[in-house]
Structures are given as C-alpha cells and as structure tokens.
C-alpha cells in the first residue's frame, strides 16, 4: 500500500509538471503537421508516434492534459466552494435555509447531467470556462450533501454550544470553529471528484462538447484517430493509456487520503 501510494503520487506529480511546462520541454509543436510522418509509429523523431496529420502524439497528449487539469481542478474547486458553502449553511442554520438548498439540490440531481452540460455548452462564451462551470454545477449537489451531513454531525457537538455560549457570531463560528473540522472530509471527497472530473472531460471532448480544436484534448485525440486504430494504434492508445494511469493514480491517492480522514475520528 505504501509503495503504490508513493508511486501514484510520483506519477501525478510527473504528469502535472509535464503538462504545465509542456512548452518548455524539447518537444515538437503540438500543432505542427508533417505529412511525411503521417501515422508514423513511435520512434526517434516522435517518441509516441504521430497522428493522421503527422502531429506529435506525445506533445499533443501533454498539451491535452492542460485542459484535463484545468477542467478537473476548476470544476472540483467550484463545487467545493459553492457546494461547501451551501451545505454548511444548510446544516448550520437548518430551517428555511436547509429546505430551500435541499430543494434546489434535489432538482439538480433529478436533471440528467449530460443534458445540463450540452445545454450549457451551447451558450456562447469561452469554451474552457463553460466546461468548468458545467461540470462544477454537476458536482455541486454531491458536495452540498456531504458538507451538510458533516456539518450536522459537528453542529450538535458541545464545542459549538460552548462557542455560542462565548458569544461567538455565526460567521466566526462557521469559519473558525466548524470549517477546520469539516475541511479534511471535504478535501478527501474533492480529491476523488478530481478523477471523475478528468474522466468526464475526456468523455465530453470525445463527444466534441469540450474545448474545440485546434486546442488538443485527450478525448478529441481519441475521437479523431479512432478510424485509424488498426493501422496506428499508438495515436489512440497513448493518450488513452496516459489518462487511464492518471485516473488510476488519482483514485489510489484519493482512497488513501479518505481512509486516513475516516480513521482520524476513531483514533482521536
């Protein structure tokens, strides 16, 4: 468990750094076409081969990961902030606040997420922002429920009553007393959500609903090269394999963190 956890962390660090610094790495331009190298297998010139337009697959994959990173981190951050705030307020104030929040959440949950995303992406605007926002809204209901459930557990604890007896304002009580208790659970869940976000972005871009070409994304690479999969499997399987390993690593890290967070209460 320890070793695999460390390997997973190392992989995530490697992929993230490679994606962030993709421009600085000695790689061909992801958009540069070289028709002579069309569907070239992996080799010295193209480490992961070239696609049907002769573009470097490794370079495109790393650049594609940027979209994956921004979308998965951005949408989870949105859900954490918005969903977390709503959930904590619902669990703390109860009554009307809770009723209204949960009604909205239930409506959102009853809505097919794909329809919601297609509807949102159809609006004009920056495509990256739209995808982040759409996935963020899809993730929010779950975060609201988790934040509310955890708040309910802590709001009944005596230290909250004691803080109230000390005349603490609601804002200070939530921000300084409750939030530090809730954060580990919320972040642990957020970590698992990042994996779902990365996968969702790939699915959306495969369907052409994410950032449009020429910006490379993993899903779009797989979609456009799938017709050549017999001839040049690397053009599909390299980005797919990279995504698979990354999500595998994210899940492994997420589960380990969640285990530690859950164990924390019992051990204290």
């Amino acid at each position, binding site marked *: 468990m320890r070793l695999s956890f460390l390997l997973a962390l190392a992989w995530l660090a490697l992929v993230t750094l490679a994606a962030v610094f993709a421009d600085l790495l000695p790689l061909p331009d992801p958009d540069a076409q070289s028709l002579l190298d069309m569907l070239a297998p992996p080799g010295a010139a193209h480490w992961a081969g070239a696609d049907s337009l002769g573009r470097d697959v490794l370079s495109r994959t790393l650049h594609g990961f940027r979209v994956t990173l921004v979308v998965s981190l951005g949408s989870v951050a949105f859900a954490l902030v918005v969903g977390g705030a709503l959930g904590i307020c619902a669990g703390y104030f109860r009554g009307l606040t809770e009723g209204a929040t949960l009604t909205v959440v239930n409506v959102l949950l009853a809505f097919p997420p794909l329809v919601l995303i297609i509807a949102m992406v159809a609006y004009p605007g920056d495509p990256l922002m739209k995808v982040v926002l759409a996935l963020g809204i899809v993730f929010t209901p779950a975060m609201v429920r988790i934040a509310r459930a955890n708040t309910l557990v802590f709001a009944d604890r005596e*230290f909250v*009553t004691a*803080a109230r*007896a*000390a*005349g*603490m*304002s609601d804002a200070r009580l939530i921000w*300084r007393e409750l939030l530090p208790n809730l954060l580990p659970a919320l972040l642990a869940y957020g970590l698992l959500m990042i994996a779902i976000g990365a996968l969702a972005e790939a699915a959306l871009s495969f369907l052409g609903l994410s950032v449009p070409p020429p910006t490379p994304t993993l899903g779009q690479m797989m979609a456009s090269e799938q017709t050549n999969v017999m001839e040049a499997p690397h053009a599909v399987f390299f980005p797919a394999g990279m995504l698979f390993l990354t999500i595998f690593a994210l899940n492994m890290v997420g589960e380990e963190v969640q285990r530690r967070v859950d164990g924390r209460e019992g051990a*204290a």
Partner: protein
Amino acid sequence: MTAPLLQVRGLTTHFDFGRSVIKAVDGVSFDLAPGRTLGVVGESGSGKSVLARSIIGLLPQSRALRTGGEAIFDGRDLRTLPEAEMRRVRGRQIAMIFQDPLTSLNPVLTVGRQIVQVLRQHTDLSVSAAKDRAVELLAEVGIPDPKRRAEEYAHRMSGGMRQRVVIAIALACEPRLLIADEPTTALDVTVQAQVLDLLRRLQDDRDMAMIMITHDLGVVAESCDDVAVMYAGQVVETAPVAEVLAAPRMRYTEALLQAIPRMEGPSHVRLPVIPGAPPDLMRPPSGCRFAPRCAHRLDRCAAEEPPRAAAGPRHAFACWNPAPPPVERPLETLADDRA
C-alpha cells in the same frame, strides 16, 4: 447585602408540543449578588440545565419554546433582549462552562487559538496581543509552561487540565457572572477539588458571581454561599448553604441529605433512598410535585400546591409538612462567615 446582579422572577421555560407541554422550568425565582455563588441542586431532569440555558439564552430555537418571567441582569431583562444584544452579553458579561471539558473544546484548534477567538470576538485586541493574553490566562488558571501548552490540542491534555482551559476561555473577557453546569462531574475527585479551589480563587479575584449547577451536595458544601434545590422544574427550597445542610425544612431536601453516606455513625447501614422516579414533566402531579414520593405526605399535599414559607431571613421553602426547625441554630454563625 449589595444590590443583586441577577434577579430571576417567575422564570418559566416550557416546550409546547401541541398535545403535551413539557414544563422544564416552572416559575423559578432567585437573586444573586456580585461575588456570591448560588448552587442549583437537583436530580437529573429537574430542570437545572434548562434553567442555566434559559438565563444565557442558549435554548434550541424551536417553535415549541414558550418562555415567561424575567431574568434581570444589570438592569436589563435577558429574556427580551434581541439576539444581537444577547450575543454581546454572552462571553463578555455572562460566561458558561460545561460538564465535559473534552467535548466542549474544539478538537482541531489549539487551545491558545480558542482563547484568541473569544478575545477577538469581544475585544479590539490585535492577534498578537490576544495571543499574549491567552498565555497569561493559561498561566492564571494554573497550567504549567503556558506558552508551550497554548500551542497544543485538547486531546493531549488531562481532564483537569482541559477543564482549566475551559475556565480560561470562559474568563477571558472578565465576565461578571459565570454559569458552571456540572463543571466537576467528569473529573476525578482529587482534580474536582483543585478545580473548585481554582474557581473560588478566580471568583474572589474578580468579584464575579457564579451559578453552580450540580447534583453533588459535596460540591455545594464546598463552593457555594446559597443553595436552590430544584425538583421537577421548580425551586422547592432556597437557603444559605450551612442552613440547608444543617436544617433542611422541605422534605425533598431532607431526603436528599439523608441519602448521603456519613463519616460518623455505623458503617454497615443501608442508606435511605427516595423511592420512585422524578415525575414526568409533561404531567406533573397536582399539589406538591414531590408528594407521590414523600414519606411525610399529608392529604392536602396532593391537593394543593404548597406556598413558599420563610424560615429565616434568606431561607424559604415550599412544604405543607416541613421538617421541624432545629431547637437551637449552632450552624447559623457558620452560614454567615462566608457572606
């Protein structure tokens, strides 16, 4: 006697659930002067804690809540004070400490930070000034190496140490009234004595009034000036401590005292117990609420509620068939020496 700091008059706290009404606190009155300690004694479910929470305004916000009477603190009725005003009173003027010091401390904040929070809420101290003050407060409640301890979490401390921290938090803003809800129940006996000593010392330093809620008459004897005995939501006897311990008049108080083992006298004697259980607060018995369990019950006890009778300048009780007054009062001098 100085003018009272807190005057409670006919305080009632009922929970109205439509079909039934729980009369948790039912017409409680008492006075409390600065620097004095009132012990509130009673069995579990007698309404002690609800009384304390009624005074400090910490009852659950519920549509079932029905409140009445008044609690005049420093000229203002706490019961009619708006929540924003009440928040300034809590922690600053009136502080409260709870039974279990572990659960009343935040598990993920250092104890120093928790004191800083309260100081920052009520005063204009900067963060660093508040930190210095927190260390001073920890030193004042007798925590060794307070600077280092301020950086620690509650779970690394012993029970007595935690309760000292809780006291430091409560006293951070120099409140004029401290409500202590069973502050020593969760502690070892030796630590209990230390905490009671500490509370008394801090109280004397600040001329602070205190309401000590407990079911332990030993704690009362050790730390209180006056006692209010509660039964089924009502105060059935109020008196100076020594007077109540030596010569209780209300039969419930008498029965409580008889149920305490004595140092003198034979050791292998069955202790007298009070038969039965405290009454259901939804359907309290008519007349005297203690009547169904009372060994000295008269016919009129179940029929009419006994009026409050005076048994001395500061001693009142409600009983139709009271214990006889002592022939001479050898302990009366003792009762006044702490006043």
